[in-house]
C-alpha cells in the first residue's frame, strides 16, 4: 500500500525523525486553505506540493497549466496556487500520459539547503533481508547514480533479528561526511528510521532528499513509503492511509468486500480464477489464443459465497466486459459454491454476454449438476483448453 508524502512524514515525525513543518489541505474551500496558511504567517515563502501516489512531482507538470507539481511561492500568493492545484491533472514520469487528479495539497515551510543526500530502507527479496541504501548524491535518481558512480552508493544488508547497528549507521554518516552535531543527529536518525521501518511494517521508506540545512541540521525533505498490506491486522491506522481517489474504482469496490486480488486490465474477457498462479496462467492462455483479459480476479481458494457473488457482480457490470471466463481448480473451494454465486448474481444482473466455466477439483460434479438445473446459458467443461478456445471464439462472435 502506497501512502501520501504528508502521511509518510507524519509517521517519520512520530519516530522523532526531523521533517519540515507542513499542513495538508484536503478540501478546496477558501476557508480551509486560509486556515491552513495561517500557520505560515510571518514566513515569506512556502512550498506547495501536490499529493498523488507517484514520484517525480517536481519535474512533472499539470496538463491544464503546465506548472510543476511542487512550487516554491510567496506566502501571500500561496492560496491561489493551492486552489489552482485542486482537481487538476498532474503528469509525471511515473503516472503515464493520463496523469493523476490532485485531491490533496500539502504546504510546508522552506528549508535552506546546504547539502542533499539519498537514504532508503527496503526489503530485498533476492537476499531475503532488509537493505539500507545511502548516497551523498541526493535529489536525483539513485539507480542512475548506482550505475554511473557505484562508489557514491552504499548498500548493505541488515540482520532482521539484530536490527540496524550503530556501526552501520556510522558508515552512512561517514559517507555523508558529516561532523559534530550533525554526525550524531545522523546516527540517531538512522536508528530511528529502522525502528519506523519495522514498527510500521513498511516494505519501503525512501527519503530523497535528506538534507543538511544551512543551520547544520538534518531534515527529511521528501519521503516515499510503502506499507505491507498483510500487516493490516496489527495497524489500526492503515485504514486511514487508504485513498479511494488513488485506486481504480472497481479495484476499490473489490477491496471493500475482501477481494484483494483484483487488477483491471485493458481487454474485454472478464476472468475469475481461484488462485493467483492459475489466474495469471489463464491470462497467458487467453492471450495465446487471441483473446484479451479485461481483468485479473483471484478469489482465492477459501472464498465465501458473498465474496464470489461480489466478484461476479464486479465482472458483469464492467462496461468493457464482452465475455466471462471462470477457471476453477478447487482445492478447498467447492465448485458448486462458485456456480451458486453466479446463479445468485444473475437473479439481479442479466447475463448478456457469453460465459464459459471450467470446473475441476473439489465438488465439480455437484457444480456441474447445479449449473445444468439452473438453465443458465453457460458452457461448462473440465478441459481448460476447450474452455479457453470457446470463450475467445464466442467473445469475438458476439462483437
Amino acid at each position, binding site marked *: 500500500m502506497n501512502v501520501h508524502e504528508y502521511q509518510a512524514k507524519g509517521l517519520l515525525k512520530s519516530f522523532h525523525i526531523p521533517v519540515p513543518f507542513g499542513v495538508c489541505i484536503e478540501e478546496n474551500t477558501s476557508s480551509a486553505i486560509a486556515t491552513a496558511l495561517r500557520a505560515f504567517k510571518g514566513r515569506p515563502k512556502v512550498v506547495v506540493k501536490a499529493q498523488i501516489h507517484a514520484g517525480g512531482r517536481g519535474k512533472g507538470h499539470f496538463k491544464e497549466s503546465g506548472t510543476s507539481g511542487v512550487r516554491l511561492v510567496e506566502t501571500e500568493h500561496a492560496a491561489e496556487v493551492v486552489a489552482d492545484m485542486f482537481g487538476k491533472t498532474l503528469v509525471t514520469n511515473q503516472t503515464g500520459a493520463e496523469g493523476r487528479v490532485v485531491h490533496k495539497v500539502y504546504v510546508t515551510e522552506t528549508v535552506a539547503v546546504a547539502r542533499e543526500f539519498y537514504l532508503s530502507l527496503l*526489503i530485498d*527479496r*533476492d537476499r*531475503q*533481508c*532488509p537493505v539500507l541504501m545511502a548516497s551523498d548524491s541526493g535529489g536525483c535518481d539513485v539507480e542512475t547514480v548506482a550505475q554511473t558512480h557505484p562508489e557514491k552508493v552504499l548498500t548493505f544488508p541488515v*540482520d*532482521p*533479528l539484530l536490527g540496524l547497528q550503530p556501526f552501520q549507521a556510522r558508515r552512512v554518516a561517514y559517507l555523508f561526511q558529516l561532523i559534530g552535531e550533525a554526525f550524531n543527529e545522523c546516527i540517531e536518525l538512522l536508528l530511528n528510521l529502522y525502528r519506523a521501518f*519495522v514498527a510500521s*511494517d513498511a*516494505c519501503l521508506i525512501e527519503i530523497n532528499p535528506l538534507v543538511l540545512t544551512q543551520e547544520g541540521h538534518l531534515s527529511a525533505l521528501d519521503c516515499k513509503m510503502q506499507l*505491507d*498490506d*498483510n*500487516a493490516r*491486522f*496489527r495497524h489500526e491506522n492503515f485504514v486511514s492511509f487508504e485513498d479511494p481517489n488513488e485506486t481504480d474504482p472497481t479495484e476499490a469496490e473489490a477491496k471493500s468486500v475482501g477481494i484483494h*486480488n483484483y*487488477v483491471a*486490465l485493458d481487454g474485454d474477457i472478464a476472468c475469475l*480464477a*481461484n*488462485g*493467483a*498462479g*492459475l*489466474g*495469471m*496462467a*489463464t*491470462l*497467458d*492462455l487467453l*492471450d*495465446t489464443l487471441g483473446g484479451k*483479459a479485461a481483468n*485479473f480476479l*483471484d478469489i*482465492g*481458494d*477459501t472464498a465465501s459465497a458473498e465474496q464470489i457473488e461480489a466478484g461476479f457482480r464486479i465482472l458483469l457490470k464492467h462496461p468493457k466486459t464482452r465475455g466471462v471466463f471462470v477457471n476453477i*481448480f*478447487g*482445492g*478447498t473451494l467447492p465448485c458448486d459454491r462458485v456456480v451458486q454465486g453466479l446463479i445468485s448474481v444473475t437473479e439481479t444482473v442479466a447475463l448478456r454476454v457469453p460465459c464459459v466455466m471450467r470446473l*475441476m*477439483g*473439489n465438488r465439480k460434479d455437484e457444480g456441474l449438476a447445479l449449473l445444468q438445473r439452473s438453465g443458465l446459458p453457460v458452457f461448462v467443461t473440465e478441459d*481448460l*483448453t476447450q474452455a*479457453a478456445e470457446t470463450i475467445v471464439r464466442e467473445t469475438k462472435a458476439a462483437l
Partner: protein
Amino acid sequence: MSIWIEQTSRVIVQGITGCAGMMHSASCLAYGTRIVGGVTPGKGGEVVHGNIPVFSTVAEACVAVHPDISFIAVPAPHATDAVLEAIDAEIPLVVCLTEGLPVHDMLRIHRTLSGSRTRLIGPNGPGLIAPGKCKVGIIPNEICKEGSVGIVSRSGTLLFEAIYQLTSMGYGQSTCVGIGGDPVVGTSYMDVLKAFNDDPQTKSIVLIGEIGGNAEEVAAEFIRQHLQKPVIGYIAGRRTPEGKRMGHAGAMIAGNTGTALSKIQALQAAGVEIAQNVTDIGGIVAKVLG
C-alpha cells in the same frame, strides 16, 4: 523414497481445533497421513477426530507423541508465533499454509531457520504430498498418483493443474511440493531440486514458476550446474503488466527484473524444456519422457 515426508511420518497439526485445522486434518487422515496429535493453546486435554490428543504447547506434544512434522493451520495474526514455536521445539519439517503473513515476520523467521534444525515449507502454499504415502496440506487427494515425477511450484492451483494433467496422462508423482507464493519463503526451488536430485524415486522434475523475484533464475543456475535429471518448466505471468501485484504478494514485476521472459530464457539456457501454456505441461512431459 519420496522427499521429506513418508508413510511413517508422525504429524502434529497446530491449530487443529480451528475450522481450517479440522477440515485439513480430516482430509490428510483420509489420505492415510499419521496425525499423532494437535496443538491449540488452552485446549490441552481435548481429543479430536475420535482419538487424536490435543496439547496446549508444541513442547508438550513433542514429549508425548514425538512428531517429525508440524502442519500449521493457524490464521495470519498467530502464524508467526506458531512457526517460531515449532522451530524452537526442533521439529524437522514445518509446513505452513497460512496466507497473509507480514513480510517483516517472514524475514525474522527466515533468519531464525538458518542454523536451526527445521525446514519450513511455505507460508502461503498448499503443502506437499507423496502420493500413496502421506499428505501434509491441501492438495486434492484424488488427482494424485504414485510415480516418478517430482513437481515443485510456487502457486497452489498451478501445482494442482500440473498434477492433474500428469495423472490423466498416466505419469505418477514421487513428491509434489508447493513452496508458497510469498516474496520470502522457508524453502526455495533450489532446496527442492537438490532433494529431488538425490531422491532415487524421482526420475524427472516439473518446475512451475511465476513472475517476480529471481528464485527461478537461481534454480536455473543450479539445474545447469548440478541436475542429472530432465526438467520441464512453466512460467506464469507472460502477459502481466509491470508494477501490479497479481494476487501473490511475490508475483510482481519491478523494473526489468522478475519478468517471465528472463526466467524462461534462464531455464532454457539450463536445458529445461518449457511449456508455453499451462495446458501444455502434460504434453511436454510426455514428449521429454517418451
